[in-house]
């Protein structure tokens, strides 16, 4: 994973903090364990000391652990809040989406992602978005729970039937980012992948217009074929 959005930058920092805290725990426990076992073997002639702890030492250890947990909690809240901050559109972004984020609807369905753009165009599998623009992805599902997961651009979120789950993010760099679904959704779950293509605002507008036109053309052709009796 390499972050390409303000949200994932914050998540990346929090992941590092979490990793350090976890590494501290693992090293502290296992080093203490190893040293204690090494030092107190009966084969080295140790004699058991029948001592028990007083309340003082337990209180001190408990207090230290509480401080550690509280510190990690505070850092967790701070960086989660930063990661949740709705990004604003940048200079290079889509001009019409400066004030409000650009809304795109993402529908999870067994086993494909469908994206509906504001002008009526839609696309399957591949989402095209403008760079440096705040995007509001409205995640919905028509069947079971799916999880939209493009790790380079945003944290993963669930699309649950009957709910709209908003995911706001901004892609800082142009490029193609791969993603997948992260909740078991049936047979072809592993193949239910997706791809986000981040392009310049001009390329984005051209894409949605062409896409809408092509969909209209295809629609008219199908209607024509049926009306002319060429397709039963």
């Amino acid at each position, binding site marked *: 994973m390499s972050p390409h959005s303000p949200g994932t930058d914050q998540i990346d920092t929090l992941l590092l903090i*979490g990793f350090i805290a976890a590494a501290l725990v693992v090293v502290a426990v296992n080093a203490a364990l190893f040293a204690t076992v090494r030092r107190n073997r009966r084969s080295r002639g140790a004699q*058991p000391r029948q001592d028990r*702890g007083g309340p003082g030492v337990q209180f001190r250890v408990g207090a230290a652990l509480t401080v550690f947990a509280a510190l990690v909690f505070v850092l*967790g809240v701070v960086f989660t809040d930063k990661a949740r901050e709705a990004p604003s559109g940048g200079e290079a972004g889509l001009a019409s989406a400066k004030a409000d984020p650009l809304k795109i609807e993402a529908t999870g369905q*067994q086993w494909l992602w469908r994206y509906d753009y504001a002008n009526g165009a839609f696309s399957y599998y591949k989402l095209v978005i403008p760079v440096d623009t705040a995007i509001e992805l409205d995640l919905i599902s028509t069947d079971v729970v799916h999880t939209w997961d493009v790790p380079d651009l*945003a*944290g993963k979120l669930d699309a649950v039937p009957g709910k709209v789950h908003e995911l706001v993010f901004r892609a800082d760099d142009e490029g193609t980012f791969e993603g*997948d679904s*992260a909740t078991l959704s049936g047979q072809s779950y592993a193949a239910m992948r997706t791809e986000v293509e981040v392009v310049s605002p001009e390329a984005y507008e051209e894409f949605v217009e062409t896409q809408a036109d092509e969909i209209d053309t295809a629609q008219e052709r199908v209607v024509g074929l049926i009306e002319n009796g060429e397709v039963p």
Partner: protein
Amino acid sequence: MSGPRPELVVDGFPKRGRPRWIELATSADHKDLGRILITGGLGFLFVALVELLLMRLQLAIPENSFLTPVAFNRMLSMYGGTAVFYFAIPLVLGLFYYVGPLQVGARGTALPRLGQVGVALWVAGATVLYAGFLFTPSEAGVNPLAPLTELAFLSNNGVDAWATSTGLATLGFVFVAIDLLTTIRNMRAPGMAWRRVPVFAWAAAVGSWLILFVGPVLLAALTMLMIDRNYDGIFFADGSGGAPLLWQHLSWIFFSGAYMLILIFAFAAIAEIVAAFAAKPLYDRGVVMGSLAAVAVIGTLAWMQNMMTAPIGVGWMYFAMLMSLALIVPFGLIVFNLIATMTGGALRMRAPLLFAIGAIGAISVGLAAELEQSLVAAAWQLKNTTDATAATHFALVGGAVFGGFAALHYWFPKMTGRTMGESLARISFWTMSVGLLVAFVPLFLAGSEQGQVVDAYKFFDHTGVNAYNLIATIGAFVLGAGIVMTLVNAILSRENGAEAGHDPWGGDSLEWFALSPPEPHNFDVLPDVRSDRPMRDVRDAIAHRTRSAERPARQSQPVA
């Protein structure tokens, strides 16, 4: 350490003329029922292992076609159900059920027939699951999330078989928990106040309370699921007032409770073993007992840690994170007290202690990784990746397999009268340790670096996880080989192990006062319990009287 046995014995207890298996199948004795749960649990450990290895084979190379997608999902569902409901919980509960009443000096349990019904329900549940396996198993995964489980999406009977099976097993666990809790509350030996109850028996009481709280929650959810599927219910269906998220809340409450149950069991068993093998009292019993109870409460309250990507308010996620991080305090205190117990002890590095130390190490890695995943925004990246799989497996293989094997090696002499082979145990331990690391450390990396998702029947060549998965598959086979060694060791040692006597380890609690294996009524007589180390008191008294007896003027008298 078999000195003179300080108790009166009724020799030649009248044997009834029925075959052993009929005796076992009709027995309401907690020891027989516990042995059914333990033996069955270890058997299902092997089955779960085979299922895991088949899945790992499929995931050894990218875009493999060894298992079809449907076969993989079925294997996954069977693995989850087997590992949780037919290996881990029954092994834990079986050891609690066998050892707990002995430790508190009870001559039986309070409600033996209820326990018998409970174990019978568990056997029935296992039968349903594997009868279902023969025609159509569930395809819905380890925790099958609604609405995938609704009839519209999975119309064959697999989900029904899964729900019936886990429902029967859970009801059985609840019944056993009622019997166990009643026994430990009401049938303790004279003098055994709560502050003198052995840590493992205390954990049995805490674990039983936990099952009494979370078991019915799952039973309610399963009932709703069955109504949805078979009687046009709408509990988890979207629209018409149903709520898919309701299933997630109810099921995760149960699974979080089960997770904590396994860790409570593991740490309590480790505490007994560490104290016995260091020949010391536990550094601070009160703190350990309090921490075990705190883990049960706080850990279960952290159920929404599993729902960090679901559409619930972020406030709830912070609550879940707070509860998860609060667990640092009780777990930290337990580990501190275990290490403090070893400090200044005379450690005998026998198999139970080896597995116990391995369990602490493995659990520490798993829980530390869970710590990272409880940070809300970090969970948005790590949830449902193989990083989470690795964390869960470190904690639960550490708790149920390493911890379970530690307990098995420790109490095996009590159950069979023979110790398990030491050298095979050592080889098994080191093989398992290497296997655990090789199998799951690569999955940590695949999940946190590349975001490889869980439960998928294949992964793709270009995602950069090929090497991780191949190494993980090799590690899983090494881990499996280690586990099989201990299972073989147990089978061989049942008949051929070295004879152990009633107290092979010099334990401090009352189960070592009984015969190995104990008579059906557990004890002929019981010593007065005057401290939290009654067996040490007995040994001291014997030593004292033996010394006194050496002086000619004094007559030795029987202890009791």
